[in-house]
């Protein structure tokens, strides 16, 4: 402050000196030389100040609450994908940097699964390079195979750019492995271009999809900052004054004076303290997934002073996307004036709470900015639709002790014909084949497929490894699982089966910071009836384990699985919804099956093949699927474009895929 006072004093002193000279009271013997010196000093000062302007501008960046959280596709990095391939062979050194070794493991893995080779045989084919038609891929993975001779130009470029050559080799090897993994004819996939080595997605932004993760009511002042908006205008003004004085040009001096006016304007104000209230109205608080919901946000200036500069970004929940209109507004508000902001969001399944709105106010000259969060509790709960599926749910044929609609292979009472056997004493009259008796006089008894009620628990994989989607904006696997679980439950309940619900996912200890409710892991014991159905729907919509937003950390699922196993009663069937994109999901299914619970896996497929890593992650998933099926656990593969009705109808027709 003392420096400032000093300059102020100097300025005032000079001003009064000038006035004194003008009025003739004081005569100073100053000539042109002094004027030139002062002007040059001003020029140097101006340039120095201007150079400081570069990079000094500041403003608060705004997040992108209009977007949802983006979930990755399986195989986000090559090391990760190769780690997955190695895990399928029981090699747990994830994130190994030695790609070639990992790919060799991968080749053995696919050859032993999909071509029925023994491990030694697969190793032999790998060394001899007979596993693929692609000589370059074979040469990369085996030292005993010579790479095909190539043109001089190609060899030169290979020598110059070893990185590219290596990457091309990896791409070719990955594509060759995938070709075996998918079991198509290799000729058909030759025409497909190689996938990219890594993703170069320019549309990706690092902006946060939330304004803030804090929960608050009312107003919270975050900070005040200078925007340095007018920095440099004073310097330019001085420059003009200096030039004008040198050239004795009143026009240029006056131009400088105008600039000085703006410099003063920049310093004149403090940013107003906003006191605004928000009122948010949604057209439908419990829409069905996919419905459009209109949001109207009314912003009111509660002070009796003008708010000259108000910028507002509404805290659209991270699980919702704005599909029409925009959740931002910039305006000026007179005292007690209101402005309405309207936009439309598309509902997705789950509970969505609005985050506090981000409010930025500036003073009239825009040289300082205040950042404020204003909270207003609004939430949208979108429950999945419990509409039954026409096709039967693919359950394992196993006997339970209560009558129901699950047809078993045992003969007995029921409706569907099973067989005819000899009459035994005490067989009920209505099951005697009277037609045969009339024809031949023999007594025979009709057998029907026994029908039993299934006791089914729908187990959902909602660990962080299940929040995967083919492309960042697609529905992720957990979302698809929850929707399918709702419809499966509706189908089973309608058929008189008892259905329970459980999940393995973010538990109490790892509940997201700031989450409104830290809940126990989801568990709903198998039951039937109207009340049970309502409870089922409520849990799917609101339980924190079925959140539309991925958890921040992984889950310690061993403990959860142990608790669940104690809860399952004997003869409980388990329908496990999991994308099968990590070793953990495989292990969960295997452990449950080993304990004697018949497991069926319904697996929404989130894999894609834009890059080599994603392609290899897809292969790893197919290997897991194969291993489960080999262990007798049916896996229902559910591709991204398919509806669950189509999938179950396909399985009913006998195509497990």
């Amino acid at each position, binding site marked *: 402050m003392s420096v400032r006072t000093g300059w102020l004093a100097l300025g005032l002193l000079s001003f009064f000196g000038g006035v004194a000279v003008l009025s003739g009271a004081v005569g*100073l013997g100053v000539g042109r030389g002094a004027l030139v010196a002062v002007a040059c000093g001003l020029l140097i000062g101006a340039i120095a100040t201007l150079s400081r302007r570069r990079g000094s501008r500041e403003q608060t960046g705004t997040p992108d609450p209009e977007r949802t959280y983006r979930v990755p596709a399986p195989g986000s990095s090559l090391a990760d994908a190769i780690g997955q391939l190695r895990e399928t062979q029981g090699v747990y050194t994830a994130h190994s940097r030695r790609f070639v070794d990992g790919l060799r493991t991968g080749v053995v893995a696919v050859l032993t699964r999909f071509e029925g080779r023994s491990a030694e045989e697969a190793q032999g084919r790998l060394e001899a390079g007979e596993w693929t038609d692609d000589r370059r891929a074979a040469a990369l993975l085996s030292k005993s195979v010579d790479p095909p001779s190539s043109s001089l130009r190609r060899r030169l470029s290979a020598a110059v750019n070893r990185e590219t050559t290596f990457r091309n080799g990896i791409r070719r090897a990955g594509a060759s492995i995938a070709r075996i993994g998918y079991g198509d004819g290799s000729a058909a996939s030759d025409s497909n271009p190689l996938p990219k080595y890594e993703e170069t997605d320019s549309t990706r932004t690092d902006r946060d999809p939330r304004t803030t993760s804090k929960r608050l009511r009312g107003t919270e002042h975050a900070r005040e900052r200078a925007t340095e908006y007018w920095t440099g205008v004073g310097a330019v003004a001085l420059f003009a004054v200096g030039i004008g004085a040198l050239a004795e040009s009143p026009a240029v001096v*006056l131009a400088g004076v105008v600039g000085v006016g703006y410099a003063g304007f920049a*310093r004149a104000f403090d940013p107003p303290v906003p006191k605004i209230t928000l009122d948010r109205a949604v057209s439908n608080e419990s829409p069905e997934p996919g419905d459009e919901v209109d949001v109207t946000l009314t912003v009111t200036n509660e002070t009796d002073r003008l708010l000259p500069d108000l910028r507002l970004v509404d805290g659209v929940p991270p699980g919702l996307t704005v599909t029409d209109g925009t959740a931002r507004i910039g305006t000026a508000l007179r005292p007690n004036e209101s402005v309405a902001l309207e936009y439309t969001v598309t509902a997705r399944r789950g509970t969505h709470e609005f985050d506090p709105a981000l409010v930025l106010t500036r003073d009239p000259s825009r040289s300082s900015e205040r950042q404020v969060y204003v909270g207003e509790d609004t939430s949208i709960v979108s429950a999945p639709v419990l509409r039954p599926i026409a096709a039967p749910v693919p359950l394992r044929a196993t006997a339970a002790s209560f009558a129901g609609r699950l047809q078993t292979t045992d003969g007995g009472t029921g409706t569907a014909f099973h067989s005819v056997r000899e009459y035994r004493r005490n067989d009920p009259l209505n099951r005697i084949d009277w037609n045969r008796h009339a024809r031949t006089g023999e007594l025979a008894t009709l057998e029907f497929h026994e029908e039993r009620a299934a006791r089914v628990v729908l187990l959902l994989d909602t660990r962080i490894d299940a929040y995967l989607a083919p492309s960042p904006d697609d529905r992720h696997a957990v979302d698809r699982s929850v929707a399918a679980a709702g419809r499966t439950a509706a189908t089973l309940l309608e058929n008189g089966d008892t259905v329970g619900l459980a999940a393995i996912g973010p538990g109490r200890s790892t509940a997201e910071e700031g989450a409104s409710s830290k809940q126990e892991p989801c568990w709903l014991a198998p039951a039937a009836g109207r009340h049970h159905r309502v409870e089922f729907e409520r849990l799917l919509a609101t339980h924190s384990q079925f959140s539309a937003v991925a958890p921040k950390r992984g889950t310690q699922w061993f403990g959860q699985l142990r608790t669940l196993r104690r809860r399952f009663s004997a003869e409980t069937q388990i329908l496990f919804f999991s994308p099968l994109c990590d070793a953990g999901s495989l292990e969960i299914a295997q452990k449950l099956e080993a304990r004697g619970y018949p497991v069926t896996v319904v697996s929404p497929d989130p894999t894609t093949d834009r890059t080599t890593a994603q392609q290899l992650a897809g292969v790893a998933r197919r290997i897991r699927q194969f291993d489960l099926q080999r262990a007798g656990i049916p896996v229902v593969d559910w591709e991204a474009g398919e509806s669950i009705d189509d999938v179950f109808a396909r399985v009913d027709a006998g195509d497990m895929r």
Partner: protein
Amino acid sequence: MSDVTRRPTSVSRTVAFGGAMVAVLAATVGSIYGFGIGVVGLAVLALGLARGNRDAIDVGSLAIFAGVVAGGLQGESVELTVLATIGTVLAWDLGHDATDLGEQLGREAETARLEAVHVLSSLLIGLVAATLGYGVYVFAAGGQPIAAVVLFVLAGAALVVALGSGRDSGGWTGNANSRRR
């Protein structure tokens, strides 16, 4: 899904370009050099406004102002130079304003009212400052001693520094480069 278009908003951008046009035309009257520099500046500024590039807006406005100064040195009309200066500052100010708004709120957001307030306040400040300066100029037209001119210039410089130094002692934190494009 609607993405935010983080590009300069339209109203401020249009006014900024208009101000720059006025500045270049007014500077042209006096001097052919002023015209040359001004047109180059206008081109750079237009590029900056289209892309939302702050450096281009800075450089373009400075070039236009250099043209205005050249015009003022060669030309006779004080009034046109002052008008051109206001135009230049408007172009620079609103160019940055449009960029800021575009980056924070995006082009789709409803910002017309806010931009109108900015245009008016900016224009008002320029007019008031110009009127005051011009008043003093008309009043004091005549032969002043050179020492008085020097002292007035010094006074102006010291006052600007004094007003501006509060900025450095404010103690704001924040990464200066993080928000720049």
